């Protein structure tokens, strides 16, 4: 890494650190006058402390809106380059893109083309997703032929049977409800707690400028 690149990485890490710490402190300390003992002027102080986070988060919203332009540019660039190697689907995509833009501009914001073409196709794919899920579920035991795989399949079957509106399966309904209410809910919370811990660590890496995207 050259000296210029090192300086650039240092600068970006510094900016990331400054912005990260400012937003974090502003979010944690702002908008809560009680934190300053409800003294005279604490309302104003709390409001002022909340301002930097508010301003920077609004800036993020603007950048996010602009990022769609980056996405479209990437999409066009990728498919134009693929067109050179004779990819038929890329030609279809580019033609569809051009036609949809033309339609939208000439029909003054009419989105009926989107509703008439994309939504039915997505709905069809969503139906196909069901088939994929059943197919995948049927192969669980071949992929995970252990106790946990067996437990996974048993729970799925129990919950599916429990959801059937048959009087004969009423006892299963109670088991299914219990499974969903206690073990499933506990497992989901445990997983979300783990993800939250990971997010704190990853966020801290970014905050301290340790993330590779800042280090160049």
């Amino acid at each position, binding site marked *: 890494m050259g000296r210029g690149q090192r300086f650039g990485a240092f600068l970006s890490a510094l900016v990331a650190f400054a912005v990260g710490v400012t937003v974090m402190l502003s979010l944690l300390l702002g908008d809560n006058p*009680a934190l300053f003992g409800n003294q005279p002027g604490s309302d104003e102080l709390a409001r002022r402390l909340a301002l930097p986070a508010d301003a920077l988060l609004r800036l993020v919203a603007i950048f996010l809106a602009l990022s769609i332009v980056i996405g479209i540019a990437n999409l066009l660039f990728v498919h134009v380059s693929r067109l050179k190697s004779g990819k038929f*689907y890329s030609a279809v995509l580019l033609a569809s893109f051009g036609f949809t833009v033309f339609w939208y501009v000439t029909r003054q914001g009419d989105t009926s083309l989107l509703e008439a073409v994309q939504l039915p196709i997505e709905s069809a794919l969503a139906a196909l997703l069901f088939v994929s899920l059943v197919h995948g579920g049927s192969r669980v035991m071949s992929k995970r032929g252990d106790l946990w795989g067996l437990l996974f399949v048993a729970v799925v079957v129990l919950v599916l049977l429990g959801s059937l509106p048959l009087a004969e399966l009423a006892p299963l309904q109670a088991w299914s409800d219990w499974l969903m209410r206690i073990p499933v809910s506990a497992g989901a919370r445990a997983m979300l707690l783990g993800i939250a811990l990971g997010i704190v660590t990853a966020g801290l890496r970014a905050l301290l400028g340790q993330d590779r995207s800042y280090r160049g």
Partner: protein
Amino acid sequence: MDETTLQVYSVLFVLATAVLVYTARFLQARRARRSRRAQRQIAGIDLIPGWAGQAIESGRPLHLAFGSAGVGEDNTAVALAGAEFFHHLIQRVGDGDVSPIMSTSAAATVPLAQDTLRRGWSRCGALTRAQWLPQGKRSIGYAAAVSCLIESERPSAHIFAGSFGPELALMIDSADRRGQGSLAVSDQLQGQAVAYAMADEALIGEELFAAAAYVAEAGEAPADAIVMDVWRALLIMGMSIVLLLEVARQLPWLSWQAVAVGSLLLLGLGLLVNRRR
């Protein structure tokens, strides 16, 4: 808990994590060699060297997918963790002739993906190998585009590390039918369930954030993974103690000594399970 207390606890938690990360790094740096024995084993990670070798030898790319994890959104940390993981993966296939393909349905993640690819893959092509596949009104559009990519690019294996919903099933199914391996992890519970059931191997929950530490050749990342394990152990211990104390209120014969012994037993069991994984 009132807002002020919550804010103070949040600051303390962040500071404690920072202290733990630096302590772990300091202790690690003191060791003459960077031992990986401190890290628990993750089964899914063991597949990666084989896939990397296969990608190099067959001249087929690896497909690295962020899903809908987007920079600037709720799952920014997921996108950053995915990028860190992918960076080390790209370095592993750096000797190959074909650059990996990265896909995302979040437009804001495109620059991150391109930058990750550029840093890991010194040769040209980063701009077109990191692809934005719009997800449409639902994520199904992204799944359809990835299925098309699976057919046209014939990747050797897929690593889905980011934010995915049930649409992950379509992608894994497409990959599976073409004999392509898959490793998947998602921050969404539905996507995680699909990953567990259908992918060749799945990482679970916070393993996404620790994954980079397992594929890194060297660096500070292992310290972060260890800190996450420490926090998790403390969390389990704390929750177990609270649970036992709650039970103790209803059972007069249960003393604090019994609670302490119970907690130690649970901690020991947790450590044992951790080491065996």
